[in-house]
């Protein structure tokens, strides 16, 4: 039985297979409307994340399956002290596949060790969120037609942003991908990404705090939130946050075909005016998230068109 706990669980070929299936779903939606008929997805959200949960649920409905679950720890048995292991063994009696979100890092892996049905990690604290990375890869593929030979700029909180770390790791498997890391000094990528990915694989990359200069080089710009709570004091936050906001002025520095991505939700790091720019792809990214989750559910359940 397969689970998806971390993006590293998937080979480059498997990721390609998922992207191909997702693309086929987008082209031939009717052909997939009953492939999961009679199957049930349980969404076990030990912490609320409405967007991710709705994406999984919509994905399962569109495959003709049905959905059950809970969406906060209060509503579940964990408030009565039930362990993660017991919860998934119980839910496995009712559901064919589980999407789990949990505030503790490693909870989905722990669940997978005793689960009788496939587990999908729908986010475990600040640790891992593989379906977001798959969403990002599908979107880049659809917008660019390739995952190799490009310059990817990542901007904002590169220290704590788990989507950034997974995307760098995932993109590092493709040929000739260059990274530009745009962040304030305080929020640079952690050492393990630097040493274990960027340096170990001998990738081309540089760090900068100047967004305008980097924009002209980027084929993809991946924006993230700069959160107030990451700073020790308000003054530092206010001084820095505007440098990492994408607005129509900064968009003038971008290439005519730069793809702008953001894992959403955003606060103010992308000006609403940028939404009208055809280069802004973050809402397409949301929709792609549903399609790649459809492809993933099919793969883990072993169903085909």
């Amino acid at each position: 039985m397969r689970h998806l706990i971390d993006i590293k669980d998937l080979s480059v070929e498997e990721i390609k297979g998922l992207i191909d299936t997702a693309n086929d779903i987008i082209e031939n939606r009717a052909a997939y409307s009953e492939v999961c008929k009679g199957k049930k997805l349980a969404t076990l959200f030990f912490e609320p994340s409405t967007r991710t949960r709705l994406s999984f649920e919509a994905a399962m409905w569109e495959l003709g399956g049905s959905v059950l679950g809970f969406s906060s720890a209060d509503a579940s048995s964990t408030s009565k002290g039930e362990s993660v292991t017991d919860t998934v063994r119980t839910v496995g009696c009712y559901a064919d596949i589980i999407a789990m979100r949990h505030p503790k890092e490693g909870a989905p892996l722990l669940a997978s060790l005793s689960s009788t049905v496939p587990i999908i990690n729908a986010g475990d604290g600040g640790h891992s969120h593989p379906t977001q990375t798959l969403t990002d890869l599908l979107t880049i593929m659809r917008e660019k037609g390739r995952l190799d030979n490009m310059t990817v700029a990542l901007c904002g909180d590169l220290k704590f942003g788990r989507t950034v770390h997974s995307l760098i790791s995932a993109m590092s498997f493709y040929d000739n991908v260059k990274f530009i890391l745009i962040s304030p000094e305080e929020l640079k990528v952690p050492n393990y990404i630097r040493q274990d990915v960027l340096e170990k694989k001998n990738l081309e990359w540089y760090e900068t705090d100047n967004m305008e200069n980097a924009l002209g080089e980027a084929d993809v710009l991946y924006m993230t939130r700069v959160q107030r709570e990451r700073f020790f004091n308000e003054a530092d936050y206010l001084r820095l946050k505007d440098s990492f906001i994408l607005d129509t002025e900064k968009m003038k520095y971008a290439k005519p075909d730069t793809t702008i991505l953001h894992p959403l939700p955003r606060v103010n790091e992308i000006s609403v005016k940028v939404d009208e720019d055809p280069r802004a792809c973050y809402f397409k990214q949301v929709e792609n998230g549903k399609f790649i989750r459809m492809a993933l559910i099919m793969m883990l359940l072993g169903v085909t068109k």
Partner: protein
Amino acid sequence: MNVDGITTGVVLDHIQAGKSMEIYNYLHLDELDCCVAIIKNVKSTKLGRKDIIKIDAEMDLDLEVLGYLDPNITVNLVKDGKLIEKKHLKLPREVKNVIKCKNPRCVTTVEREVDHIFRLTSEEKGIYRCIYCESEAK
């Protein structure tokens, strides 16, 4: 190799200087009834300084734990005053319930009776990571 005072037992040699107490504790040597000697800061041609532990009884040592703590240790098994076997250690691929994950956000902090498992992720740097949260063992 000086095995004076031991006729049958185990000599842990080439322990990194200063680490012998840690090893004594991890192996629960305090629970033994036999004679246990800790010799610290012995001059060594290989290491400069080293520690040695001598255990005056046959016992099953957890070589995985020992390899995790210090892969350079040599384990000498002595019987009837003779060295009968010399074992060299290496870093184990995985250690179970030897160390605990210190990441407060890790699922091991809340789940009951969960095994704390660490896996070797970098042989050359000797880095172990929690299989759940991937935090580095400190």
